[in-house]
């Protein structure tokens, strides 16, 4: 007996995602125009939000998709920052290419790091990554040419004469400081788009599906032919590159670096974990929502000193208890809305109806 069924088709798009794509383009146009519209201090705030978002997306890819819970990502922020300072101050390389070189240095660091930490599982892996970060911090604090334990500043000429700054002064009549702020802001914006674009593409590819399988059940994933180890290593090295680039960009904008700040577990990992956890781990939307909430909380609680950290901790615990998949997870479960859909839904054939599934994660 043959049934006259329509052929099967596979879909990932949703109506919400198409509307969102249009809205996202509008937001991006405004974001690119921001340096002409708003003040320098707002641009600096936006720069902070964008770079934290890059770090959060990377940590989310590591923990939420590859199951690699690292508390040592600050090693790549710090190392990227130091690599930039080394390239610019010691070798006289222009800051823009130095940012990419810093990313490559981070990958070079990630290879031996992975060699040690990948032998560890779960919480041991987490501790291992932290130990590596501390070791690198202590080693760089010995580097006298870059200020040792007290740190150093970028030479003023470096950012003033940076590639592109002259062009912007001629085109838009900006002052040097304003032009370099606008330039680092645009670079951060491009980095956010590239990072989210890369992660979204990855998750929609065959590799992304394999990664989700590894996260859910590594043994079963190996049994169906997924190379779990290679997949995790690839994610680890990629996030090291992007985190290193972000670190270089952050310290290009700060123009001052010290080992304690650059390898701060609170600034570059604890806050990042907070952003991912309250936003929603295992979703691309989660860190975006999380970073906005984090910035608002930081602004509101800025005057309360150490109460600020206590409040963050408390909010983190409440969210974990009542919305274990974060605020976006809660919202998405209720409404079924996904802005970055990765779910492959089978349509057609004898399927009379399609059943709604939640997002990955």
């Amino acid at each position, binding site marked *: 007996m043959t049934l006259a069924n329509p052929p099967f088709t596979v879909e990932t798009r949703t109506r919400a995602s198409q509307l969102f794509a249009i809205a996202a383009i509008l937001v991006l146009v405004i974001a690119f125009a921001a340096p002409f519209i708003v003040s320098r201090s707002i641009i600096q705030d936006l720069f902070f939000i964008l770079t934290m978002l890059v770090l959060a997306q990377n940590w989310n890819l590591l923990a939420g998709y590859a199951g690699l819970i690292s508390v040592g990502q600050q090693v790549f922020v710090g190392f990227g920052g130091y690599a930039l300072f080394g390239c610019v101050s010691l070798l006289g390389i222009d800051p823009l290419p130095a940012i990419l070189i810093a990313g490559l240095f981070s990958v070079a660091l990630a290879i031996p790091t992975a060699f040690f930490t990948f032998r560890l599982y779960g919480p041991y892996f987490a501790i291992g990554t932290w130990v590596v970060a501390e070791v690198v911090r202590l080693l760089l604090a010995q580097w006298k040419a870059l200020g040792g334990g007290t740190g150093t500043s970028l030479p003023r000429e470096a950012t003033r004469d940076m590639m592109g700054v002259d062009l912007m002064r001629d085109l838009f009549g900006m002052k040097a400081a304003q032009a370099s702020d606008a330039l680092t802001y645009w670079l951060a914006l491009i980095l956010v788009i590239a990072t989210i674009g890369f992660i979204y593409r990855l998750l929609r590819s*065959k590799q992304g*599906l394999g990664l989700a399988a590894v996260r*859910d059940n590594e043994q079963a*994933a190996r049994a169906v032919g997924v190379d*779990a180890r290679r997949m995790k290593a690839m994610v680890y090295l990629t996030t090291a590159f992007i985190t290193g680039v972000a670190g270089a960009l952050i310290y290009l904008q700060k123009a001052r670096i010290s080992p304690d700040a650059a390898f701060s577990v609170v600034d570059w990992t604890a806050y990042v974990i907070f952003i991912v956890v309250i936003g929603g781990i295992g979703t691309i939307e989660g860190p975006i929502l999380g970073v906005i909430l984090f910035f608002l909380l930081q602004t509101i609680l800025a005057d309360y000193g150490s109460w600020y950290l206590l409040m963050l901790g408390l909010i983190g615990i409440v969210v974990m208890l009542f919305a274990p998949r974060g605020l976006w997870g809660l919202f998405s479960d209720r409404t079924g809305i996904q802005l970055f859909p990765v779910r492959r839904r089978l349509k057609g054939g004898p399927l009379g109806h399609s059943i709604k599934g939640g997002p990955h994660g």
Partner: protein
Amino acid sequence: MEILELDGICKTFGALTVADQISFAVSEGEALGIIGPNGAGKSTLFNLITGNIATDSGAIRFRGRDVTRTPPMARCLSGMGRTFQIPQPFEKLTVFENLLVAGAFGSERGEADVADRCAEILVDTGLIDKANVLAGSLSLLERKRLELARALATEPKLLLLDEIAGGLTEGECRSLVATIRAIHARGVAVIWIEHVLHALNSVVERLLVLHFGKVIGIGKPEEIMASRDVREIYLGIEV
């Protein structure tokens, strides 16, 4: 032509011997049943065959190649499919995505190339209505079916089934047996560990009896079931 050959496989966990000089072969397209009391080393034997556990000594050949030191992933790619005794679905993926992963990686092709085949397997295994449901929300029967469906998606030449009929009702068991017979009829070799003997014996051509890691009998089901050792050890009947 042998598809799988085990030659003197040994494995101990500390003082406990779980595989003691196990040697047997399975022909292409054959169905072999494995029985034995709890703790006889049946699931361990599967883990040794698929490479989830490394052997202490002995050799495993699959489709003419020595795979004794080959990792599980590579054994899957060369045509070995398995189900787990305790179903291990990818819980946060849908049923269809579970098959897509297995199809795309297990047969080294693109997602789009295997999507149709995965959908057909869902129809064959009775899971098509659940295609877009998260695998974590399935019932036990559905999880067992998913184990089978996911193993099939890797396009195996040899299928290893680990107690796939356990815990099912009589009706569920009958339909599962029908599905397995159909797979076997297409020329896929099957090794099936099972306690539900009538289900097992309605499919397999030979039975192997395992006891404390030793093979104590291998042959036609009726001969094995009639043998003195098996009746004593496995069925607990005084002879």
